[in-house]
């Protein structure tokens, strides 16, 4: 709802749903719903019984995860080392960077302010270990700061759910009467070891406790933001035509790409106009490349489409779809591979005429002639082998079958004569019929079957005709005849 700009007021109970094993379950709730007793994990039908005025939206789990990944990089403003923690947390390694914001407590306040400006609610904690920070942020006091030697007693008061264990283990601990982390710490180590010796990490309270107390290391593996491949040219005077600067820009960009061992699949050319506006065009390639001449040639016909306005004084060129591209020797004599040229040809054609005009026909599993042929991108990888059609098929097919008027010899047979495009064709020879039934799983109800005939007229023109439907088949009036293709 926030995405659509229709965020509900805080006093309306709202839950996000996701698909569970037995119908949708609650993924997350807002404060009003929590007060009414709706908890995450409950089934939607049950919660509707509890609270009939509940608003339900489907959760976008993948989108949330992507947003959190972006937030990981955004959080580098406070420290250089950050990573996503599960589906709802961030871990920042702030060692040595808290004093820049006036200490740990001030840093937490600053973080909470900045995150709330983004519209996010946050619960923050500082602790010496990942596990302790996780527990304190979720179950501890607001903005708690935990020193190095305070960890055991600060954690001791928290419930065992703060140990990052799975549901079964938590249930087991609760049945054993261990309600807080302190109670787990008080149990003799030997008996815990004996009980959980074979359990995995997420089911082993002892290992989780060691991690939280810092007895077992748990390093933060930070991820790197992909470098932005970007070049620009500043001009002393506004100009109208970027063409003369393109070769240089392309070369600089490709130099950067080859420096990092990468190639790109898209290029965005942006001009910054003197009247404060921005105009940009994009070209795409079908294979990863870093050849400046090729990339430059792609702009050849597109540059006219850029709107220069009153002139521009800054041109930038940004690479998109950056992928690793290793240097490959194609052939022993130093010549290049043929496929590369083909990829470039397809690029040039798609850049000029649009990607939809350059296609490649493939055979599909269908008996209906127009469905037996599909279209894929010109250089797409074939994922299945081509199936040969056992029956004879025409070499030309009309996009839309053309209706003809026929003169019958016998009602169930081929026509004796038909009029197509105002010309009369007398049937001299024919083969058929080949009956093709409608595909009931795709066609609408009432689709009629087709009887295909290959007919040859007196001049030798071989035409693929079909009759749609049968007499008295109860699916419309008399059958109609269509020309669908031509044989060689």
């Amino acid at each position, binding site marked *: 709802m926030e995405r659509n700009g229709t965020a509900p007021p805080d006093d309306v109970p709202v839950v996000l749903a996701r698909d569970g094993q037995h119908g949708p379950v609650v993924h997350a709730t807002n404060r009003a719903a929590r007060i009414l007793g709706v908890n995450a994990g409950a089934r939607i039908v049950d919660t509707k019984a509890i609270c009939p005025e509940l608003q339900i939206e489907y959760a976008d789990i993948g989108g949330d995860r992507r947003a959190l990944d972006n937030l990981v990089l955004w959080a580098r403003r406070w420290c250089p080392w950050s990573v996503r923690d599960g589906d709802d947390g961030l871990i920042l390694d702030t060692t040595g960077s808290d004093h820049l914001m006036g200490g740990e407590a001030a840093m937490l306040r600053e973080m909470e302010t900045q995150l709330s400006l983004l519209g996010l609610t946050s619960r923050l904690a500082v602790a010496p270990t990942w596990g302790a920070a996780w527990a304190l942020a979720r179950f501890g006091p607001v903005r708690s700061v935990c020193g190095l030697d305070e960890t055991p007693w600060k954690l001791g008061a928290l419930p065992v759910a703060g140990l990052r264990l799975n549901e079964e283990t938590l249930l087991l601990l609760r049945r054993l009467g261990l309600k807080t982390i302190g109670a787990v710490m008080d149990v003799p180590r030997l008996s815990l070891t004996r009980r959980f010796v074979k359990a995995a990490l997420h089911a082993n309270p002892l290992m989780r406790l060691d991690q939280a107390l810092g007895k077992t290391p748990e390093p933060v593996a930070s991820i790197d933001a992909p470098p932005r491949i970007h070049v620009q040219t500043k001009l002393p005077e506004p100009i109208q035509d970027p063409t003369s600067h393109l070769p240089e820009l392309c070369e600089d960009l490709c130099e950067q790409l080859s420096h990092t061992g990468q190639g790109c699949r898209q290029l965005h050319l942006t001009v910054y106009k003197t009247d404060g506006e921005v105009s940009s065009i994009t070209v795409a390639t079908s294979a990863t490349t870093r050849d400046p001449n090729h990339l430059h040639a792609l702009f050849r016909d597109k540059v006219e489409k850029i709107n220069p306005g009153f002139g521009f004084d800054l041109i930038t060129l940004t690479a998109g779809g950056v992928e690793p591209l290793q240097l490959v020797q194609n052939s022993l004599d130093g010549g290049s591979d043929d496929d590369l040229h083909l990829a470039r040809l397809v690029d040039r054609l798609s850049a*000029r005429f649009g990607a939809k*005009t350059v296609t490649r026909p*493939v055979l599909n599993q269908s008996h209906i002639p127009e469905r037996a042929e599909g279209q894929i991108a010109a250089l797409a990888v074939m994922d299945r082998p081509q199936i*040969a059609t056992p029956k004879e098929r025409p*070499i030309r097919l009309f996009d839309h079958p053309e209706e003809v008027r026929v003169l019958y010899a016998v009602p169930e047979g081929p026509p004796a004569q038909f009029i197509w495009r105002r010309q009369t064709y007398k049937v001299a020879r024919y083969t058929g019929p080949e009956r093709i039934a409608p595909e009931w799983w795709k066609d609408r109800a009432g689709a009629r079957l087709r009887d295909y005939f290959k007919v040859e007229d007196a001049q030798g023109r*071989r035409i693929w005709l079909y009759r749609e439907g049968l007499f008295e088949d109860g699916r419309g009036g008399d059958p109609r005849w269509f020309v669908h293709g031509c044989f060689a």
Partner: protein
Amino acid sequence: MRSLRLQKNPNGQADGRAHQTDVAAPTLSEVFPDTAQDAAAVGYMLSRLPKTDAPILWVQDRLSRRESGKPYLAGIGTQHPIIMVDLSRATDVLWAMEDGLRCRALAAVIGEVWGDPPVLDFTATKRLTMRSEAASVPCWLIRRAAATNLSAARNRWRASSRPSAPNPHDAQAPGLPRWSLDLFRSRHLKPGSWVAEYDRASDRLYYDAAPQHGTLDGGDGTQRDRAAG
């Protein structure tokens, strides 16, 4: 019997009546179908494509597609992958063909142009011819509803369907396709008319003499010449 042998002998020279140069060398050929809906021209052109599995670039303008249909893969066969380009203007068709002829990885470049657009003049065909010969990629131009104006195409054919061969299994049914081919202008070959019969199963094209150029050979009709390339 008047016939043409399009096969190269081991010396690289074409024998038969055409002996000037290598006639199998890739170049620009034009085919003029009799009527727009006659697929004989396409059939003949497909039978002359090189027997490789390299892709074909097939450029079609909108009118050709509407009036004569699109190439249908199930009938053509999947030996060559086809890269289809659907365009609306003849200028774009020529541009795409010329660009395609720079790419040596293609088996052939095929263009279909409707009518007599002003851009398709002698210069345009000359450019296609020279590019095709430089890249040694055969180029075919199928021109429907067109007049046989001035052109630099090395071979210019007229093609139309003829009643097919008798079907050995069913007297009522059409058999192997037959076409009237008329080579009315050529650089390396002697112009003439043929009735060709195409056997799709063995991918062979037989040229027999056209009836108006004298009777078919008095023998049993077994002497047929095979065209390669």
